[in-house]
């Protein structure tokens, strides 16, 4: 489990993988140097009658190769293994279905599947005996070490040669994929501050807004989410709106809305007042969202 607070391991892993594909002086760009870019986040498609939904696909045009990644806590399901195995052995489906777009269809294309975790999955009874890669984000006092497990290495040798990857920091990037809500790895705190950010942003643009306006502004993947997840996020957003109304924060928001006279003074004063209350508000909302989630579960 990661030592970073207020962010799920699932979200952190997605960010770490994306970070390895980016130019950033504070984090290694190992995969970027091999030409990998973020091809698709949260892909979802049907293959051989099964719904397939890994977390991320990274593609290198230089190697015409994709890494299909599923970020796990510890548990691995047998049926997931079977689904991924089928993709792993017929990677061209990723091209022919248009799921991977950063590869060159006219050249030989290959893809490998990888499980990723902060835990050591070596002892996991459901770890399949196949040639999937399994990557662990291990840590020492100063950094994370991304390593492949023995017998679960990447087949592409230039890629495998880069492992282990030393991050030289325990401070992973966190905002490429800012939060996960509705999947069991709930980043309620990140979700709440994102909604608050969007509340101020949208209020400065328009006089009225609703939960959908805020979600569209706050959630980078909003357009592509399925209806059930959208409904769950709407309910959480309504909870946040109701809570800030109950605590009287809506008065500060209304004052910054479009059309105020003497703009800067009004906006500055109102948002200073909001700023003073934000920390306590986020604590209260997180508790409420967690409680709502538990009630639903019960």
């Amino acid at each position: 489990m990661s030592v970073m607070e207020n962010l799920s391991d699932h979200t952190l892993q997605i960010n770490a993988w994306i970070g390895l594909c980016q130019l950033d002086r504070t984090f290694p760009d190992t995969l970027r140097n091999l030409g990998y870019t973020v091809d698709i986040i949260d892909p979802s498609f049907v293959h051989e009658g099964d719904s397939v939904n890994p977390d991320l696909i990274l593609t290198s045009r230089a190697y015409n190769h994709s890494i299909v990644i599923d970020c796990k806590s510890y548990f691995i399901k047998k049926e997931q293994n079977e689904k991924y195995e089928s993709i792993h052995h017929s990677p061209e489906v990723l091209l022919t279905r248009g799921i991977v777009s950063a590869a060159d269809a006219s050249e030989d294309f290959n893809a490998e599947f990888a499980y990723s975790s902060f835990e050591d999955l070596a002892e996991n009874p459901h770890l399949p005996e196949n040639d999937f890669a399994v990557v662990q984000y291990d840590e020492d006092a100063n950094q994370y070490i991304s390593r492949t497990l023995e017998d679960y290495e990447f087949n592409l040798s230039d890629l495998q040669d880069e492992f282990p990857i030393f991050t030289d920091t325990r401070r992973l990037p966190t905002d490429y994929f800012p939060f996960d809500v509705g999947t069991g790895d709930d980043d309620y705190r990140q979700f709440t501050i994102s909604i608050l950010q969007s509340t101020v942003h949208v209020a400065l643009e328009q006089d009225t807004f609703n939960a959908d306006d805020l979600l569209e502004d706050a959630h980078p993947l909003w357009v592509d989410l399925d209806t059930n997840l959208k409904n769950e996020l709407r309910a959480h957003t309504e909870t946040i709106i109701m809570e800030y109304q109950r605590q009287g924060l809506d008065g500060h928001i209304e004052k910054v809305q479009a059309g105020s006279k003497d703009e800067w003074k009004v906006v500055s004063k109102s948002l200073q007042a909001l700023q003073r209350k934000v920390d306590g508000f986020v604590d209260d909302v997180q508790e409420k969202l967690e409680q709502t989630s538990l009630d639903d579960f019960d």
Partner: protein
Amino acid sequence: MSTSSIQSRRDLFDVFQHTIEGTYDELVEEQELQPGQTMLKTFLIESNVTPEELHERVDITEARKVDFDLQELIIQRNATKYTFFLDHEDSRFWTLYTLEESEDAKKVVQDMVSGVRNGLDYTWMPIEQQREVMDMGVFRDVGVSYDADDVFSEDYIDERLDFGDLSVRSSGRGTGTLFDILDSHDELSSFLSLSSVGIKRNVNGSFILERVTHNGRFTTSGGDSIQLHLDTVAEIKERYATLLRKIEENHRLSYESQEHGTGLDGTPLVIELDNEIEDVRQFIENIITAKNPLRLWGAKTKLDDQYWKIKGVDLHNNDKYTIEICPKWLRLYLGDEACGNTALRIYSNLQRHYDSNATMEVEE
């Protein structure tokens, strides 16, 4: 001053040519200007609006077209009228000329850029670009103004910073040497925030005396070639515009909905600090306040004791930002519609109010 005879760019620049020759002669001979005699001031303004929209931001009592993309504007402020010439041939970077008194001109321009989400802003030159101005000519004078007390509380300054306010102004012979000595001093170099740089630029026997501030104001104290002034402004603008363009091309995160998921493009900016932050939480509570000069509002979360994340809004222009911050660096994420000037404002203000040795790498 009657401006009715100015009917074209050439007429305008002829007037400015006489002005810079006159001010130079007076300063050389008398060491001061005649009453009513003023220097040419030129402001570089970053714009995301049309000149027509400027009428919504300041009180323009008259606007006269002088030439293509060049207008004379009579702007009223506190019942006094001021004359400016707005050149918007470059729609992203406007050039605003005036012969009004320096303090009056600064206040009129401040009114233009200081609203909320008004689409106009200063050009916030990082120290690296100000140092490049030094190299454009013979270094004449320098203003250093480290203003931590504009941002940080008295307690924070007392506990955490060596200076709350450091001002140095030097001109004439030895200025370059003095600056080099201060700059080479490890304990001082993080506090040498340049507020202005003065140079004498010579090209092919012509010369111009310019003082350029960190926020894109040029004061021309003399010279014999208005064309050399225009060229100096153009070169500095082009350098800034190139930097801004690279930020907007490479450092805005954009998410694109695709048939089977979402694509991602862009990478954040990293600002590395020389003056390490002792207490990150306290630092955030001083800079994210919804107050001038930074105008950043935000909600923070702790990631570890000395690693925090802020999601907020830049109230200059209502751009969303995310900052992850630890003692040695800040990682700044901008949305796909954010203005590159937001990054440069945050960066140059950090240099000005916290650490003049902060650096930011921009992808080519």
